[in-house]
């Protein structure tokens, strides 16, 4: 596929993820739509432009791994997994229903395509570090990607992993930070400030790229570069907006786990075109 066509396809998938995940949240009257929307472009780029995977062989040892550390954003995550072919799209309508495979937080034992069970924050990067070490020991070709929120970087476990990954020069590991600057209750910088975030990762020994997290072409460029020879793990700080794509949700902390009423749902769907 030509790059322009690929970027157009990714853009279309991202829009679909936003619409489908918002429908899930509306129907379930539960979820984390603000974070779904900040992550939608990153997820679409990964699954439709970067990751090597075969949804019919979810345990293929050679697959690229993606770890969804911000496990509360299952609206977007389940949507992208369904779009990628891991399970039927119709199943998305069971989101959070009793006995559904689509729990509020992902469970690898229920769903193919989930690498590790997340939900408590600060778990994804440490596990992804272990996956990358396995690949390093074997000299394997697969890459490991992990998407964290920014607020969750307040969990110390991430910094334990940051030390380990840099110490072992895990160039096969890529961390993407969904830097929407909002956590559950307030702005990150008003809560426990993270800036200068890029300097922190560089000081820990990581290679850092800063990108507009809604720019599919730029995300594709940065994430597609072969890591071979870099000698460092890669940290992509993706500057995003919570609620991106819907005017009344944009950069609005109330939509961390806000759920729409009928009117809001219809307005959002009218905007997401």
């Amino acid at each position, binding site marked *: 596929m030509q790059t322009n066509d690929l970027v157009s396809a990714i853009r279309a998938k991202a829009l679909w993820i936003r619409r489908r995940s918002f429908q899930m949240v509306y129907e379930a009257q539960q979820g984390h739509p603000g974070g779904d929307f900040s992550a939608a472009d990153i997820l679409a780029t990964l699954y439709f432009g970067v990751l090597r995977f075969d949804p019919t062989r979810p345990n293929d*040892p050679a697959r690229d*791994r993606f770890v969804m550390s911000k496990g509360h954003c299952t609206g977007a995550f389940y949507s992208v997994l369904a779009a990628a072919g891991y399970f039927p799209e119709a199943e998305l309508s069971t989101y959070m229903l009793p006995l559904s495979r689509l729990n509020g937080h992902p*469970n*690898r*034992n229920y769903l193919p395509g989930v*690498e*590790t*069970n*997340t*939900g*408590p924050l*600060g*778990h994804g990067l*440490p*596990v*992804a*570090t*272990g*996956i*990358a*070490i*396995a*690949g390093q*020991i*074997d000299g*394997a070709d697969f890459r490991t990607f992990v998407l964290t929120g920014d607020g969750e970087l307040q969990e*110390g*476990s991430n910094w*334990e*992993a940051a*030390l*380990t990954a840099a*110490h072992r020069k895990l160039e096969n590991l890529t961390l993407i930070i969904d830097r929407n600057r909002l956590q559950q209750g307030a702005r990150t910088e008003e809560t426990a400030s993270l800036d200068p975030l890029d300097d922190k990762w560089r000081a820990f020994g990581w290679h850092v790229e800063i990108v507009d997290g809604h720019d599919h072409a730029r995300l594709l460029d940065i994430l597609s570069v072969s890591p071979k020879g870099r000698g460092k793990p890669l940290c992509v700080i993706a500057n995003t907006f919570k609620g991106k794509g819907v005017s009344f949700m944009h950069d609005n902390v109330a939509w961390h786990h806000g759920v729409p009423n009928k009117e809001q749902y219809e307005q959002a769907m009218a905007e997401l075109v």
Partner: protein
Amino acid sequence: MSAAVPTPSGYFDCRDSFANVIETLAEADPRIVTVVSDSVGSSKLTGFRKKFPERMVNVGIAEQVLVAVGAGLANGGKVPFVSAASCFLTGRALEQVKADVAYSNVNVKLIGQSSGVAYGELGPTHHSIEDMAWLRPLSNLTVIVPSDPWETAEAVRFAARHEGPVFIRVSRMPVPALERKNPVFTVGKAEVLREGGDIAIIANGVMVHRALAAAAALAGEGIEARVVNMSSINPLDEEAILAAAKTGAVVTAEEHSVRGGLGGAVAEVLATHRPVPMSILGFPGFVPTGSAEWLLEHFGLTPAGIAEAARRTLARKAQ
């Protein structure tokens, strides 16, 4: 760490069994790796490191990433043995044990070293007398408390061939090799080491040989005590507990808090199905300063203490 206590003749440090078996298994199975948190020496893994330097991952003093890296290595097809002092492995990294290992149900082997009060004078920060209470409710996680070098070796072999998460509690307190007529290690099956119809003593770990000594002393008074080695905490051999209760009285003995460990597990079964007079021997909570042996003595976790508890419990049976 605490001063090295020489191992008395005929006694063994079960960490050596772990180290020997893991080195042998690793020769045959290239998937086996070890993961440590600056805990190479205390895990007796210097030999492993020498033989397989590229198959040891040392994350430094960082227990959360220690356990999580184990989960990640399992995802990458490895069979990781994650080894660290039990107090930190369980207490510090409990959420990783819960979410990354047990709930994710991945093929990680957790080796809780120097458990119980083995660190003696170093105090309750370094004791691990809460670990069973923390781990026992975790689904999917097999939990084994071996009693001697043979059982430790068997538990490690089981862990290597079992697909799924396993926790093995390894003591550094010297224990004798127990005499077994027909040694068969089966997870989820308790082992009756001595028959007896008056009372049952259910023990695990370093308390098993003490329970046997207590039973021998009781026999001299005409009291026949059955001794059950309940090394498998998850899954629990409820049948063996109910069979033990047929004696009409039960004493449990463990190197753990009296709350939430082996005694708690046995009490849950008995209270539900067959209440009998019961005593739970263990530590009441944080313990004062003292060597490991002194602490066991002080809290009655000795042959004499177990025998005395058995007599008291028997008296309640008669009422």
